[in-house]
């Protein structure tokens, strides 16, 4: 390579070098940091911390052994500091480590491998095993550092949640405890659920001598050190690419509000020991999509980089990364990490989370019995984009802090299941039934935001009344709503299509036609699904009705979360309505103050909370996150009029949405 034919440089070389003896390191501190020398006889004097002086050797020792001993000492030091510096680098990037002061009052720093970090004594005890002086002969076990969070400091009504790529939140304690409900769950001191999630597991180790190449075994120590410099710089950099870094910074910034008692922690332990408990790092916190990373969903592809693939490996929401090993005479020094791809953790109010489960749930199959399964496994069914959209990258975009309700790259909701089944080759009855069932659930999903397990489907339209009757805090909070409303993406205008199943035998059903129930939007949803097979009507008619319903107000109002309106919005309509409702709001507040209830229609009552997001006061004090109150009124009115002229009303949705967002 490049190194071989190098002449040994002269000692008293650079004129700019002030020190007379280049053998002496300028650095008097422990772990002298200037080992740059290649001489035919390796002199690693600068490695020592004792000001570069030769360590005193037993005078009786023959001089032939001396260099060997020196070499050995240096080797041991390198191995030792490799471990301890790696531990310091990792832990200081995941926790606030207390500083120590040297006797002269300066902050003690570790300068090994030419990266200067504040030293700490917090790790001293745990690192004893790797501070021995005979590491090259008495090989140390792997040094394992686990970075984790736990719920030890959460209050009783708080829960640890994680947001998946669609923004949906999952209870972490439940996921880790598994589906078995029988065993008693651990609790923290405040009586809440206790769980611990390992985010990263770092392994620092000295590999076996046999794993080292011949060249590696003869690597000269200054070269080892020099390459170690590069390794530690890249370790420092890489630590800040990982998701846990973002989590650490996010929690550190708002220790009370954002984290709510959540803190990134670390522990150091010896590797290679059989673990008593199952590895929590391997437990997925939410179901990963079976259609794993689809290439077309990537903006870029890490695997195109030639050698990155061998170092990074992604399965089950975990990523692994191995740094190139540092060859030394004792064996390869290695650093590697396994980490969760997603570290979008947050603390949620347990009540809100529970109610969001009830309301957000939907049947994926209409024939299953509705079981009260409030845990994560019932919240499946969203054909969300794969959990590993950026699977091979350590970076994780999109934290809860920057939650964007609109996820354009997701292929879910109605879009993904095209009602046009003409694509299927030869439709059999079975596939048609499946399609019908899918369509049923799709339609249900559009309107069903709040699903109660006792078979009463509540649509978005009827929500406000229910919301008023229900206690305020039972509604999911804003984040949850944002997640759930983001799920059904706005279906584009559906193409008109003819049935490709003309002449198929119909299935009889006793449910009524959906058309009769448009005045109450919910049942429109529920029963429309059956209209595909509902009597002596042709397939075309059914599908036409179906499409008609889809293009009706209810579907249009499902476009709530579309942030970028493609049409110009008719703001004048909105402002007119706003004035009227502000007047109503004022009226309401005035009347509530007077303790006299006016007699507005119940529909108008429902409008007030939404409009309270503007400057008017909130007489009812309900959560403002339930949107589209105007639509409630509109839908009710529109339904009565038969659904025409709904375009404008649909458009007024969006400015209201923005307005709410602004507030």
């Amino acid at each position, binding site marked *: 390579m*490049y190194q071989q034919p190098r002449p040994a440089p002269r000692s008293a070389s650079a004129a700019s*070098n002030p020190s007379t003896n280049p053998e002496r390191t300028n650095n008097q501190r422990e772990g002298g940091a200037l080992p740059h020398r290649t001489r035919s006889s390796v002199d690693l004097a600068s490695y020592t911390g004792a000001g570069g002086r030769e360590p005193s050797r037993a005078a009786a020792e023959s001089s032939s052994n001396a260099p060997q001993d020196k070499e050995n000492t240096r080797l041991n030091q390198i191995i030792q500091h490799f471990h301890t510096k790696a531990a310091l680098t990792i832990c200081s990037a995941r926790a606030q480590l207390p500083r120590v002061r040297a006797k002269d009052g300066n902050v003690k720093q570790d300068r090994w491998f*030419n990266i*200067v970090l504040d030293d700490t004594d917090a790790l001293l005890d745990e690192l004893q095993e790797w501070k021995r002086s005979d590491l090259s002969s008495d090989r140390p076990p792997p040094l394992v550092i686990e970075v984790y969070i736990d719920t030890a400091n959460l209050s009783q009504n708080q829960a640890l949640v994680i947001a998946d790529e669609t923004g949906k939140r999952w209870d972490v304690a439940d996921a880790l405890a598994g589906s078995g409900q029988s065993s008693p769950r651990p609790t923290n001191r405040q009586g809440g659920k206790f769980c611990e999630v390992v985010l990263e597991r770092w392994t620092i180790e000295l590999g076996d001598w046999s794993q080292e190449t011949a060249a590696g075994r003869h690597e000269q120590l200054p070269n080892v050190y020099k390459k170690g410099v590069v390794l530690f710089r890249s370790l420092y950099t890489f630590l800040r*690419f990982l998701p846990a870094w973002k989590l650490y910074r996010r929690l550190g910034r708002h220790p009370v509000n954002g984290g709510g008692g959540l803190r990134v922690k670390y522990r150091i332990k010896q590797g290679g020991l059989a673990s008593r408990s199952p590895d929590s790092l391997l437990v997925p916190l939410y179901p990963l999509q079976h259609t794993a990373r689809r290439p077309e969903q990537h903006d870029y592809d890490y695997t195109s*980089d030639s050698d990155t693939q061998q170092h990074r490996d992604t399965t089950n929401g975990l990523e692994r990364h191995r740094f*190139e090993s540092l060859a030394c005479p004792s064996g390869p020094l290695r650093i590697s990490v396994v980490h969760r791809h997603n570290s979008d953790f947050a603390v949620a109010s347990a009540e809100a989370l529970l109610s969001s489960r009830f309301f957000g749930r939907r049947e994926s199959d209409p024939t299953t019995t509705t079981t009260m399964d409030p845990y994560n496994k019932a919240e499946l069914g969203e054909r969300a984009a794969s959990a590993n959209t950026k699977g091979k990258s350590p970076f994780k975009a999109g934290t809860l802090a*920057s939650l964007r309700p609109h996820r354009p790259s997701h292929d879910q909701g109605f879009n993904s299941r095209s009602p046009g089944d003409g694509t299927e080759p030869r439709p059999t009855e079975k596939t048609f039934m499946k399609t019908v069932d899918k369509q049923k659930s799709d339609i249900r999903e559009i309107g069903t935001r709040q699903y109660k397990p006792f078979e009463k489907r509540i649509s978005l339209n009827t929500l406000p009344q229910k919301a008023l009757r229900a206690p305020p805090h039972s509604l999911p909070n804003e984040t949850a709503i944002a997640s759930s409303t983001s799920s059904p993406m706005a279906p584009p205008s559906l193409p008109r299509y003819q049935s490709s199943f003309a002449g198929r035998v119909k299935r009889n059903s006793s449910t009524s036609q959906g058309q009769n129930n448009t005045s109450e939007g919910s049942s429109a949803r529920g029963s429309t699904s059956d209209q595909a097979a509902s009597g002596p009507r042709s397939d075309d008619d059914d599908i036409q009705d179906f499409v008609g319903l889809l293009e009706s107000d209810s579907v249009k109002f499902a476009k709530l979360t579309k942030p970028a309106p493609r049409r110009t919005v008719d703001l004048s309509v909105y402002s007119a309505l706003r004035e009227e409702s502000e007047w109503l709001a004022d009226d309401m507040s005035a009347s509530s103050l007077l303790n006299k209830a006016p007699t507005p229609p119940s529909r108008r009552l429902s409008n007030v909370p939404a409009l309270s997001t503007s400057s008017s006061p909130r007489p009812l004090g309900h959560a403002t996150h339930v949107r589209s109150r105007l639509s409630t009124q509109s839908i009710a009115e529109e339904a009565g009029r038969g659904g025409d002229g709904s375009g404008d009303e649909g458009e007024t949705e969006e400015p209201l949405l923005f307005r709410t967002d602004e507030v």
Partner: protein
Amino acid sequence: MDGKPPEFTLELSADRSNVKDVVKGIMHTVFFHRFFTPLTPATHDVLDTTLPYVSEDDIEELIETRATALVRSLDTASSTHTSPQYSAKSNGTSRGSLAIKFLEKKRRKGWFIAKADEETVWETWTIEVTLTSARSEPEAERNRRVMESSLQKAAMKVVTTVNEEKGHIPPITTNESNPFPYQIVVNPKT
């Protein structure tokens, strides 16, 4: 014999408001792994990514100067559309590049006069920058995503490359200042 020194290429895409930060961020990342003197690390956030930062005056100034020059040339290229060496497309993207070269001082024994140390390049990092522009919000959003991902990818490539390619780093012969002189060339003519 020594072959041609290795050259590593990083590709960046950025919009006008972020291009300078993005380019500076990557340059600092490269220098962070090539500044062999003991260094107290610093960081700097660019586009929601934390990148290392070299708090050394000389390096900071040089990076700042060169990044400014590159951005200026990108601006000029995108406005004139005439310069042949830049692929200024009709949609307004323009390209430029930077080359970071690391050199080593080799002693040269002169017969009569002690010659100046010869400086040879032992590594080159080429940063190719594409300046994007958008005419609509969705396009701008798409450009932003591409920009973020290109930054992350480039930063990760630096980390991976420096780890894999360590054999060609020359021996370090001075313990005083930075052993490897460096140069940054804007839009080098190839």
